[in-house]
């Protein structure tokens, strides 16, 4: 009710002729609460979901479609050999504590991330950096150890946002950035409030105030949206209820894509999964459609390799692992496992894994493979599966954007060691020509698909339920962000 009056008031005072209006509040529901508020020292996606683009900004930034745009750097020059990036910062940008953004802040941020004591969860993003120097107040020169076609992309990550030495001490509780929203308050366990930054260097936000509320229980999330306590819920956790919202004129349902390749990971070093024939048999035993329907209520795009289908360089390789139980049994026979075998399937908490795991276990059983299912919490999963590599199969969504490079790391938890892939990956890092990059990426995608490293299931979708009058929400999630800078209420 309070919101409606605020809306009406703002509407009456608005001089803008079109539907959008500045002012009014928004309540956003999120399932997970950030552990703290420093995006540069934790892996928790929840931190970016609240702060990325709203409070913190990087040299570059992701657009709604995942492309990279200028952020705090308004322009840059790249040396001929691709190793020196000279960034020109936007003039007149201030942090929320009133201090000016200058080249020294960028040097501080990048040096802090690369430091020996760095707690940056994505330290690899900064590994290629040799030196960072401030040439003048608004010019920064970054010298790389070698050419890196991904550098501008890397700088757009939430883990690379620009922070200031003046406010770093308290960043985990009181984040100070340069964005269109200022951090206002955090009631732990309940909500985080942001308010509009009147001093913002770019187009100011429409909303006066944005409140993020943390509702982990799917039933509670449903009730909160239905009761209109929450105006928008990105990543709505109860997909089975979406038809009910679609049928209700008070709401809109947006279904977008994410960077989450959801895969049946296989331990490539553990018999019998070290046999490509066996891995291929598993891949052909899986009916992706049934998994998507059964575990995700139809949300998700089938994938045949470890790459996002919305990416321009994606190659559809699903035919290499089409659902064919007959072929699967035949392959098992040829590999010497005609009588089948038993394998451990360890499942982390998300529903794609727990529900998907049951369905995949049934599909594998029909070709003679028995699974021993163990449900794990994330902390256990990280210790046993990811670090301990003590597993046969697991299901997990790899949510980092553009992460096909993990296949070049033989010590990564699926332990895939291919000299050919590693060579391709090294070549990609040095290649900046878009056409040649596309060609390399195609070969990389095909390599891992033909080696049947993992069972490639589907690209994770993100459903958002929102009030029908809300405009400007991101449909897709190219990074785990809830960019509210362009969100407004329609009259």
């Amino acid at each position, binding site marked *: 009710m309070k919101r409606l009056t605020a809306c009406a008031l703002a509407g009456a005072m608005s001089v803008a002729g079109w539907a959008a209006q500045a002012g009014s509040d928004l309540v956003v529901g999120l399932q997970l*609460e950030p*552990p*703290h508020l420093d995006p540069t020292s*934790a*892996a*928790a996606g929840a931190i970016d979901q609240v702060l990325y683009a709203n409070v913190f900004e990087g040299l570059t930034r992701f657009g709604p479609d995942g492309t990279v745009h200028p952020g705090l750097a308004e322009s840059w020059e790249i040396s001929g050999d691709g190793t020196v990036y000279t960034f020109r910062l936007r003039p007149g940008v201030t942090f929320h504590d009133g201090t000016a953004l200058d080249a020294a802040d960028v040097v501080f941020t990048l040096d802090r991330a690369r430091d*020996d*004591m*760095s*707690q*940056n*969860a*994505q*330290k*690899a993003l900064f590994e290629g950096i040799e030196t960072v120097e401030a040439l003048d107040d608004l010019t920064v020169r970054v010298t790389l150890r070698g050419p890196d076609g991904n550098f501008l992309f890397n700088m757009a990550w939430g883990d690379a946002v620009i922070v200031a030495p003046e406010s770093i001490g308290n960043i*985990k*509780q009181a984040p100070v950035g340069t964005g269109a929203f200022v951090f206002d308050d955090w*009631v*732990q*366990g*309940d*909500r985080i409030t942001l308010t509009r930054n009147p001093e913002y260097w770019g187009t100011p936000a429409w909303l006066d105030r944005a409140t993020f*509320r*943390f*509702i*982990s*229980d799917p*039933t*509670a999330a449903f*009730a*909160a949206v*239905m*009761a209109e*306590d929450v105006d928008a819920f990105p990543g709505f956790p109860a997909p089975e209820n979406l038809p009910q919202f679609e049928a209700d004129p008070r709401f809109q349902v947006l279904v977008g894509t994410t960077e989450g390749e959801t895969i049946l990971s296989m331990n490539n070093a553990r018999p019998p999964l070290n046999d490509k024939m066996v891995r291929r048999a598993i891949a052909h035993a899986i009916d992706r459609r049934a998994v998507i329907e059964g575990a995700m209520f139809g949300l998700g795009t089938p994938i045949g390799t470890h790459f996002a289908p919305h990416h321009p360089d994606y190659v559809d390789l699903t035919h290499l692992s089409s659902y064919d139980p007959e072929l699967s049994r035949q392959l098992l026979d040829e590999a010497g496992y005609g009588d089948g075998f038993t394998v451990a399937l360890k499942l982390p*908490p998300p529903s794609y894994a727990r529900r998907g795991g049951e369905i995949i276990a049934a599909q594998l059983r029909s070709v003679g493979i028995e699974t021993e299912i163990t449900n794990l*919490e*994330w*902390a*256990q999963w*990280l*210790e*046993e599966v*990811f*670090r301990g590599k003590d597993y046969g199969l697991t299901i997990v969504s*790899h949510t*980092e954007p553009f992460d096909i490079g993990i296949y070049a790391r033989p010590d990564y938890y699926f332990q895939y060691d291919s000299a050919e892939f590693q060579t391709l990956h090294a070549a990609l890092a040095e290649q900046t020509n878009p056409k040649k990059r596309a060609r390399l990426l195609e070969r990389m995608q095909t390599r891992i698909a033909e080696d049947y490293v993992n069972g490639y299931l589907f690209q994770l979708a993100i459903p958002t339920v929102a009030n029908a009058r809300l405009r400007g929400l991101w449909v897709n999630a190219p990074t785990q962000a809830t960019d509210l800078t362009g969100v407004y209420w329609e009259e």
Partner: protein
Amino acid sequence: MMLRYAARRAVSLVLSLLVASLVIFLVLEIVPGDPAAYMLGVNAQPDTLAALRAELGLNQSATARYLDWAGGMLVGDFGISYTYRTPVAEMIADRLQVSLPLALFALALSTGIALPAGIWAARRRGSAVDVGVMGLTQLGVAIPNFWFAMLMVLVFAINLRWFGAGGFPGWEAGLWPGLKSLTLPAVALALPQASILARVMRSALLDTLSSDYIRTARAKGLTRAQALRRHALRNAMIPVLTIIGLQFSFLLAGAIIIENVFFLPGLGRLVFQAISARDLIVVESVVMLLVFAVIVVNFAVDLAYAWIDPRLRGRR
């Protein structure tokens, strides 16, 4: 007499706390999972993990960490949360602002309904009132409280819009908005408790009403109501107090599910989040606090027994 009794109980209280702290620490030590690895996720590099583990003090021996933690608690310092990086004592104090009023609210509702209902049913034993109260309490015990909570959300938040679906505005928003947001959760928590308590009250009162001293009291000329008030109720209160004490401890610690249904920032949710993040120091401290609460409540109940029943003061 009363003092010596209290002192003896206080010593056993301290010993219980010491044993509890050891058990809690050891149990959580065994649980697999590394808080630093959880925080830094799948792309963390070994040197980053090492840096964070060093900062959190996780590279110390278990003995050193136990002594640090237990020693700190003696002076009211619960340490710093691994994930939130804020003092645990502050976090617990914040969450108690929700959990304690919620537990008291639910307890007030539960006793406020249960005691009169139980007494009424006992006095009219076998009547329609008795059958009605017994039937309703049977239902109250049988209904799972989270289901009842969801039902109330559906009716009062989604359809009637009398209450919000959950959340807590904070006491700074005022007493009434705070109480209002705790009403549905308190009712959901109180219902099964009230049902149990009413049944206990009724049977305890029936026991005493059929005892010899009540017959004697009636024989010397007291009315039924006088005998009930002066003799029967006082004696019936012992089992009822025991149950109330247990219920308060349960309400403080056992609201996890209800706090999740109503997304309240209480202690239960804190423990829930802390367990999945392996924020062991928070889990240990909250569990310790709950143990402390249970022990203190039991202590208070013991003292209340002695106050109600002078015969108990000399014993034990």
